[in-house]
């Protein structure tokens, strides 16, 4: 008797403790959080001015002492500007532009996609044709043309990147709305006489939340990369705005000898994108698991 009673307890114990793996999977959260913190509070952490030029401190190697007695941990660039300060302020620019672009793209895409997927008809047909036209251009090319045509500003870059950014949001939302509209609770609401708009908001839209959050994460990575690409080409942002792409581009002339100017901001950028990407994949996987249950 005692053996039988003991058996289930042993089974419970046998369940492997997965804390180690869980901890490891939290690393991207931590890293992305750290970047966000630096973007928000960076200027408080660091007392260098990223655009302060100093001819006596030109092209200092990482770790050397500047003329003011401070240490340039990441070196200085061709105009004597501190590379670490540029990375910190560049994080600000990237996070600001990334978050605003994703927010705008998400709003526009979810609204249009939900309406098209739920009501079908004219909106759906028009949206499909708009996709066709916009997808004929490489996203970065359209962004270059838009950002190059108007007065340089942060807002312009956000608009230029949102011009194609909303497409994926609209497509995913449309797809979810298409399947949800056939579900019994939507029929029930319809039979009860709930107006279409309320059905959409209360009974369809909540189901798009999971995929949209995962998509927003991945889209954030793409937008930050695209912004860096634009700044690298010298298009869109005002010259006074510090950004990773601009610093990397500035360092290109000094590659022979002063490798750090281009290399270090690029590592900062790549590390962020890798972690945001893993985070996005985790969110996507979680949402997929949730759907099959």
């Amino acid at each position: 008797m005692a053996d039988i009673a003991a058996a289930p307890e042993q089974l419970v114990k046998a369940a492997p403790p997965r804390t180690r793996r869980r901890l490891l999977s939290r690393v991207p959260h931590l890293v992305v959080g750290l970047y966000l913190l630096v973007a928000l509070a960076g200027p408080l952490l660091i007392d260098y001015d990223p655009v302060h030029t100093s001819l006596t401190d030109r092209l200092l190697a990482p770790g050397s002492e500047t003329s003011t007695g401070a240490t340039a941990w990441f070196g200085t660039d061709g105009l004597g500007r501190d590379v670490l300060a540029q990375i910190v302020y560049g994080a600000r620019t990237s996070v600001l532009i990334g978050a605003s672009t994703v927010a705008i793209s998400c709003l526009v895409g979810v609204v249009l996609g939900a309406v098209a997927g739920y009501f079908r008809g004219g909106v759906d047909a028009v949206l499909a044709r708009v996709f066709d036209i916009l997808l004929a251009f490489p996203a970065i090319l359209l962004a270059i043309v838009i950002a190059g045509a108007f007065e340089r500003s942060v807002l312009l870059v956000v608009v230029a990147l949102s011009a194609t950014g909303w497409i994926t949001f609209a497509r995913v939302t449309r797809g979810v709305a298409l399947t949800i509209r056939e579900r019994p609770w939507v029929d029930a609401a319809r039979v009860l006489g709930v107006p279409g708009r309320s059905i959409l908001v209360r009974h369809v839209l909540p189901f798009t939340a999971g995929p949209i959050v995962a998509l927003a994460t991945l889209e954030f990575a793409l937008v930050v990369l695209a912004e860096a690409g634009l700044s690298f080409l010298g298009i869109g942002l005002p010259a006074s705005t510090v950004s990773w792409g601009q610093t990397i581009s500035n360092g290109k002339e000094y590659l022979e000898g002063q490798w750090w100017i281009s290399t270090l901001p690029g590592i900062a950028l790549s590390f962020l994108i890798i972690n945001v990407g893993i985070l996005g994949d985790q969110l996507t996987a979680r949402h997929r698991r949730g759907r099959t249950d």
Partner: protein
Amino acid sequence: MIRMVAQRLLVGVFVMWGAASLIFLIVRAAPGDPATVLLGPDADRTQIEQLRESLGLDRSLGAQYVSYLGDVSRLDFGQSHRLGRPAMDAVLDRLPATIDLTLTATAVAVIVGLTLGMLAGGRPGGALDRVVSACTIALQSFPTFWIGIMLVLVFALGLGLLPSSGVGTPQHLVLPALTLAFPFIAIIARLTRTSVAETMREGYVQTARSKGLGERQVLLGHALRNSLIPVVTVVGVQVGALVGGAVIVENVFAWPGLGSLVVDAVANRDYAVVQGVTLLIAGIVVVLNLIADLLIAQLDPRIRTGAV
């Protein structure tokens, strides 16, 4: 099949009309009078008026739009005042360099991506699979322009093996093509891996195994063909992204293609060239997407006969 081709062609024409209209809209919405921009700040009023007239800017927006569509349909994008010759000539001059670059990058990406994906997908969850998936995440995350600079730093400046920029010899093509190929290697490898892993569970693969075929023959002779369908689709869909990547890569390596031309034109408000490049690229994307669709139909009889 013919009906499908005709239908796709019709959509293609519509898309080109939309693309041309979109570019017209952006260029006309841009601040600054094109004539004033072209002549510079020192030009006097009569000069500006004359140029406005010769450019047709004195007519109504509707009339300008109609004549613009007519010109575009004849592949005439007007005169590039900065280069002093028709924009289309300048664009066609630069096209071969971009084609060289993108074709080489595509070939590299397909060969390396397929190999990695098949190695990883042949035994999902294995050590090789994990290594490949870690590599693909990294390859997809690096900004292309930065990877290009890093390759220059290591292979051109550090080891002195390859030229850092320009054109001329096949060696000049190595670094730009590799840089451009990296993200696509990752995309193709990931896709092939999933696709092969799925195909390996199919009944006909089991049949092939039970006939006593070796794992290599099963993979190459039976699983590969079906796994190719999503790969061809994605190569078709990614053509746009590939050309977009080329725009940036060309600027890193001073590669004299469409990408460096268009960035230069945008910076100098040379709208004839901007229109020429963007619409040519849109046209190429539309045509290649069409070809990819037809290729898929050829690879998959279910689509060809309309069974799906």
